[in-house]
């Protein structure tokens, strides 16, 4: 009758893999030149992984089809930027607005949390009317809200705060985490490890939420709203909570995107960005955190790095490879995506998580022994 928590080797293996990844990131960063495309991919990948997981929390675990992720990223990115641009640089950045309204700068970590909170606050307000809508209608309404947020942030009259539609820059970026000596040379590279740490902590929190009693309730809502309600789960509260938490982390993801890009502009946070993240979630497997993480790195690597050679003329000996010119990379990339969507419907991981991989291995070994 007793329920002892059994020692689970799969969990241990999974933890080990994660630790190894972090160690590898740290070591690689010290060894390879900082200019390597690998780090660009890793930084952006970590950012997208967090955003994808936050979207997965909504779409995959709560069953809320929301397409507002770009809007919340925008709020996060702007909040972060507005609060961290050094006072000395504000005159330059807010060139048309006399240095802007905010005349102080916050440290990075509180600003990140502010970014999340701002996004969550907006999510709360938007959620009040919107979360009562069902499936597709919810998707459209959230998409619409993201567009509205974008327009508001670009409004000239708010320029003193948001710099209107103009670019925001000079805020601390990932590269500012590198430790430099007096001559300005980098002695310890941390610019890739830091995004991994931020994303890692956030994703860990999301995973813990999913595995808590609240996470179970969210999954119950996804499986069957009516039954969930009949089991005493307040649909609206839980949806609202999930929406706010997802937006909170999307906000932090937005701030990370700002740190990665080193400049941000509301214009970039279009529905196309949301679609990109949705594709990452689907390719990884709806309902798998591990899948979202893996696929965001693959997605970023493909779109930014591995396929770049397709955009330029290539010669094999004297033979010029046909078709290769600017834009071909994107064609190949979209075809790959279509193949995944059509033929690998479950995505990379289905609904499996990292520990499940080791479990399965163990089982098959047992079968072999038997």
């Amino acid at each position: 009758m007793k329920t002892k928590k059994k020692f689970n080797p799969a969990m241990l293996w999974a933890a080990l893999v994660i630790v190894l990844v972090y160690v590898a990131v740290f070591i690689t960063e010290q060894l390879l030149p900082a200019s390597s495309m690998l780090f660009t991919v890793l930084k952006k990948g970590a950012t997208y992984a967090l955003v994808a997981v936050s979207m997965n929390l909504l779409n995959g675990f709560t069953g809320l089809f929301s397409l507002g992720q770009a809007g919340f990223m925008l709020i996060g990115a702007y909040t972060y930027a507005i609060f961290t641009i050094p006072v000395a640089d504000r005159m330059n950045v807010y060139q048309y607005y006399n240095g802007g309204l905010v005349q102080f700068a916050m440290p990075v970590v509180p600003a990140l949390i502010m970014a999340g909170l701002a996004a969550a606050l907006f999510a709360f307000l938007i959620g009040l009317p919107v979360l009562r809508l069902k499936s597709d209608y919810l998707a459209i309404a959230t998409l619409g809200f993201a567009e509205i947020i974008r327009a508001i942030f670009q409004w000239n009259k708010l320029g003193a705060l948001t710099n209107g539609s103009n670019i925001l820059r000079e805020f601390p970026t990932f590269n500012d985490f590198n430790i430099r000596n007096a001559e300005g040379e980098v002695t310890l590279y941390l610019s890739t490890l830091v995004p991994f740490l931020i994303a890692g902590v956030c994703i860990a929190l999301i995973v813990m939420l999913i595995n808590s009693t609240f996470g179970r309730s969210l999954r119950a809502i996804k499986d069957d709203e009516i039954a969930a309600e009949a089991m005493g789960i307040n649909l609206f509260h839980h949806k609202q909570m999930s929406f706010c938490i997802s937006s909170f982390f999307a906000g932090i993801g937005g701030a990370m995107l700002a740190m990665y890009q080193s400049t941000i502009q509301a214009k970039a946070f279009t529905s196309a960005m949301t679609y990109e993240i949705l594709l990452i979630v689907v390719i990884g497997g709806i309902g798998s955190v591990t899948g979202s993480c893996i696929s965001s790195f693959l997605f970023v690597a493909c779109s930014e790095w591995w396929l770049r050679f397709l955009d330029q003329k290539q010669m094999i000996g004297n033979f010029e490879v046909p078709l290769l010119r600017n834009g071909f990379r994107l064609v190949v990339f979209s075809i790959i995506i279509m193949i995944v969507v059509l033929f690998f419907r479950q995505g990379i991981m289905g609904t499996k998580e990292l520990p499940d991989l080791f479990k399965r291995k163990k089982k098959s070994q047992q079968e072999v022994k038997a």
Partner: protein
Amino acid sequence: MFNTVFPYLLTGISVGGQYALIAIGYTMVYGILRLINFAHGDVFMVAGIVMVYLNASGLPLWLSVLLTLLITVVIGFAIERVAYKPLRTAPRMSIMISAIGVSYTLQNLVLYITGGLNQFYPKVSFISDSVTIFGASTKMVTLVTPILTVILVVALVQLINHTKIGMAMRAVSKDFETSQLMGIKINSVISTTFIIGSFLAAVGSMLYFTNYNTVIQTSGAMPGLKAFVAAVFGGIGSIPGAVVGAFIIGICENIIKGLDIILFKAGITKQNLGLATFSDAFTFALLIVILIVKPTGLFGEKTTDKV
């Protein structure tokens, strides 16, 4: 006052007509497959590109027009067969993602083919001409669009209400599985829907691009999204709803663009508030309001969950 508002109204009606032709494609597909066909706006754009290339190849205009219609219809049909049909039993989300994937693919293909440069749409002599009505100058196409839209919609409604395939369409949209059991050939009904949708998108694209003269791979995104909003606004699944929604959205959007000057002339505001920034956002705000007040749109049918 009338003189101030009228030009915006005129533009709004024209834009609304163009949205309407695209919106019908969205609404019909949704009605039958419960799928938001995100690629529809891109089919519209591809129709524009096809026309550009056909015209550049030196074919006479009438032939280019016919071939454009034909090719667009084939593309629409092919998209359904390749990207949606294999997913018929898959969850709704998968098929929607597939639509996003198709949209992505079409845009990137066009980007590759055109090299990302604006393509100039051929001028069609009669409808590109300027006319003046009630003191407002406009292109002929502005007047032609709403009229043509209404004619096509009336024809379509006749088709749906009075032909066998129309009846099949209505049946399928009411109950997918039952109508399948009743011996309706689901696939041909769906294909017909896509063919009609693509045909109207091609017509819409001709009117639209004659008006705006350039086509680029992203040309379909905004009109597509707006038309879709219009379809939802009017009650997705309802053709008259889509048309009414499209006209409302088109007019509102253009009134917002001119709202500053209208308020200024009416003496309500003293300075320019930059409200034109919200022309797109307002469309969505309108949509959200209608969804909250009447979740299934203006003409949508109410559905209840069975417990």
